[in-house]
């Protein structure tokens, strides 16, 4: 097997899946272009902002495609390239794509509200409360981890720090130019992308040197502001412009693969149990974003559903971006598959392995290896920051929804105030980053996949309510519950042995949460007759 054959096969399969299965999903769920989207009905110029699909696609893709689709497949490659490739393809088409598209669609039908609100309307309010607390705590953990990642990157490489700050300033000018000065998005994009690449040079010329701790504090201040400012001025244009970095990186990887045609060095399959790790559930938990990730549903039902212009764009953004992410995950898999185990050990981290892979592939069309691999590292660092500020905003939404009076649909409580909601999210996340979040980080893999299972559950209940077919949701949901519950069981067993009882308690609480929501929704999902949700 070689990398070229794999990437071409995956791209062709994904194009066919998008045109057939994606279209079938849209038809079965009753995508209706005559329904006014929440971005129009609830337009507030801050969170609800109707936006062109390619800009929302850029935001959504940049937010979901952080380091996850790269780290996951590379980390799981010790099972062999075949199971990882199969799970990327099957997972993206029948699991992740359905999950992301379904979450986006269901959120749009619930005023762009979160999965928690979908649970509230279709399963019950106690389930919603449990889900929101769980999802919010997961986001807090993501903030802690990504604040560390971004701060450590900035502290060790001042050029990346300068470039990232430059991107923020550029995004603000872009947002004002397009949204307030009426400059066409085409021209603004061309100028913006050129200036984006100028930023890479600018960063190298004027590196900012600060310690990791100072960067952590500065980043907390930044996401505090970014989470409350109108989405069109910073978050949306930054993600949109950044997505071109990702597209360029992927295009460079694919074109390079066409010419390089790397043969695979790693075995096709190493076994169902490797070094004490079982293929089930570890493969499914580890590949994560490359096939299905619960974090995607939070983005889809958080920021994306409030910006999308019309239901016709839901397939492109929800299903399409998951398939593009599947391509990125495949490039990541190839980047480890074509090197020897010794080389992989020398390179160390998955990000380094990926940067080496894409950097090597790009040499075939004249890009210097050092420039290529540095560009890839920079692009990934930019996405870590994108994930960080989107997460802060999503956390704010969850707190606001939790404390909003359901009868009056207005943020009557002080706790639902957007400044309070953001501050508590950022302070807790940032504080956890200083306190030793790494002790609980191992729970993220399982909790992220539990989020996916619960989101599928919410969407299935909603589809049942509106009398639409939901079997395409039920099957992935059942598998994701099995994966999560098994992984949590292993986590509890392993951490009892090591004495990390904090992790054991959290894992037990997650198990209880999953069981409660499964019981609550069982009757709804198995009911023969159902009333249509209002």
């Amino acid at each position, binding site marked *: 097997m070689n990398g070229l054959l794999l990437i071409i096969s995956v791209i062709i399969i994904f194009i066919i899946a998008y045109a057939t299965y994606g279209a079938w999903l849209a038809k079965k769920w009753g995508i209706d272009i005559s329904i006014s989207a929440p971005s129009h009905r609830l337009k507030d110029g801050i969170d609800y902002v109707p936006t062109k699909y390619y800009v929302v696609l850029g935001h959504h893709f940049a937010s979901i495609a952080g380091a996850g689709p790269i780290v996951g497949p590379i980390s799981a490659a010790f099972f062999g390239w075949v199971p990882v490739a199969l799970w990327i393809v099957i997972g993206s088409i029948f699991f992740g794509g359905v999950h992301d598209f379904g979450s986006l669609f269901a959120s749009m039908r619930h005023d762009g509200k979160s999965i928690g609100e979908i649970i509230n309307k279709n399963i019950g309010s106690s389930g919603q409360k449990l889900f929101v607390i769980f999802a919010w705590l997961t986001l807090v953990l993501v903030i802690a981890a990504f604040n560390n990642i971004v701060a*450590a990157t900035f502290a060790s490489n001042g050029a990346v720090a300068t470039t990232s700050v430059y991107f923020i300033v550029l995004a603000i000018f872009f947002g004002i130019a397009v949204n307030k000065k009426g400059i066409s998005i085409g021209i603004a994009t061309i100028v913006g992308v050129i200036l984006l690449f100028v930023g890479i040079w600018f960063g190298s010329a004027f590196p900012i040197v600060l310690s990791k701790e100072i960067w952590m504090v500065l980043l907390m201040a930044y996401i505090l502001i970014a989470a409350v400012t109108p989405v069109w001025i910073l978050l949306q244009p930054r993600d949109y412009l950044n997505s071109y970095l990702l597209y360029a990186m992927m295009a460079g990887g694919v074109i390079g693969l066409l010419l390089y045609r790397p043969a695979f060095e790693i075995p096709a399959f190493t076994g169902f149990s490797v070094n004490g790790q079982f293929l089930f559930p570890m493969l499914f938990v580890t590949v994560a974003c490359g096939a299905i990730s619960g974090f995607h549903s939070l983005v889809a039902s958080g920021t994306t559903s409030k910006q999308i212009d019309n239901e016709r764009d839901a397939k492109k953004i929800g299903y399409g971006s998951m398939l593009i992410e599947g391509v990125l995950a495949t490039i990541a898999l190839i980047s480890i598959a074509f090197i020897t185990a010794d080389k992989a050990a020398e390179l160390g981290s998955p990000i380094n392995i990926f940067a080496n892979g894409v950097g090597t592939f790009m040499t075939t069309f004249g890009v210097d290896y050092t420039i290529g691999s540095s560009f890839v590292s920079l692009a990934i660092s930019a996405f870590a920051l994108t994930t960080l500020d989107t997460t802060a905003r999503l956390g704010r939404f969850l707190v606001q929804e939790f404390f909003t009076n359901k009868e009056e649909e207005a943020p009557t409580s002080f706790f639902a105030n957007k400044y309070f909601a953001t501050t508590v999210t950022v302070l807790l996340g940032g504080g956890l980053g200083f306190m030793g979040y*790494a002790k609980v980080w191992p729970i993220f893999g399982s909790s992220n996949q539990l989020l996916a299972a619960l989101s599928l559950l919410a969407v299935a209940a909603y589809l049942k309510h509106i009398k639409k077919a939901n079997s395409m949701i039920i099957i992935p949901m059942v598998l994701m519950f099995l994966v999560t519950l098994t992984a949590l069981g292993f986590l509890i067993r392993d951490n009892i042995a090591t004495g*990390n*009882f904090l992790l054991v308690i959290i894992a037990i609480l997650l198990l209880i949460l999953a069981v409660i929501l499964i019981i609550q929704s069982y009757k709804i999902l198995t009911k023969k007759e159902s009333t249509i949700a209002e």
Partner: protein
Amino acid sequence: MKYETYMQNIMKKFHHHFDIRENYSLKDYNFDYLAEFHERSEKYFASKKIVLDGMENNEYCFFTYVPDMGLSHFNHLTHILEDALLDIVEPTSEHMSTLFTCIIIAENIDDDHTISMLKKYRYSKSFLFNFKGWAKIRFVLVDLSSEKIYTSKGGERLKKVYDFIF
């Protein structure tokens, strides 16, 4: 088995992974040996220059020879170790675990009550809800005359290790 032989066998196994000191004084107590193990692992992002966080795990094994083991001696040891633990552990954000294992090698044990108290003993301390790690004290009582091993709560897995020395 004689104490000297037993200790020689232990040290043969320990010296690969532990730093060993003879005649180690802690508070007012003199231990025959102290075996220390310190492990540090780091997570990094992209290159090895970008360290995200570190994890530190430590184990201290205190060996003491007590010809006639009794309850008062055991209680004395628990006080010493509990006091010392708070001095030795540095609960930073990178600290994950510190284990104190006290291995008492006895020729005779006064009564069953001492054994039963040792078996019931449990000590663990959490630092900032485990975010700054945790620490535990375990006891292993080696009865040379009967070649039996008794462990305190949380030290059950050590039984095999010290039994194997016989």
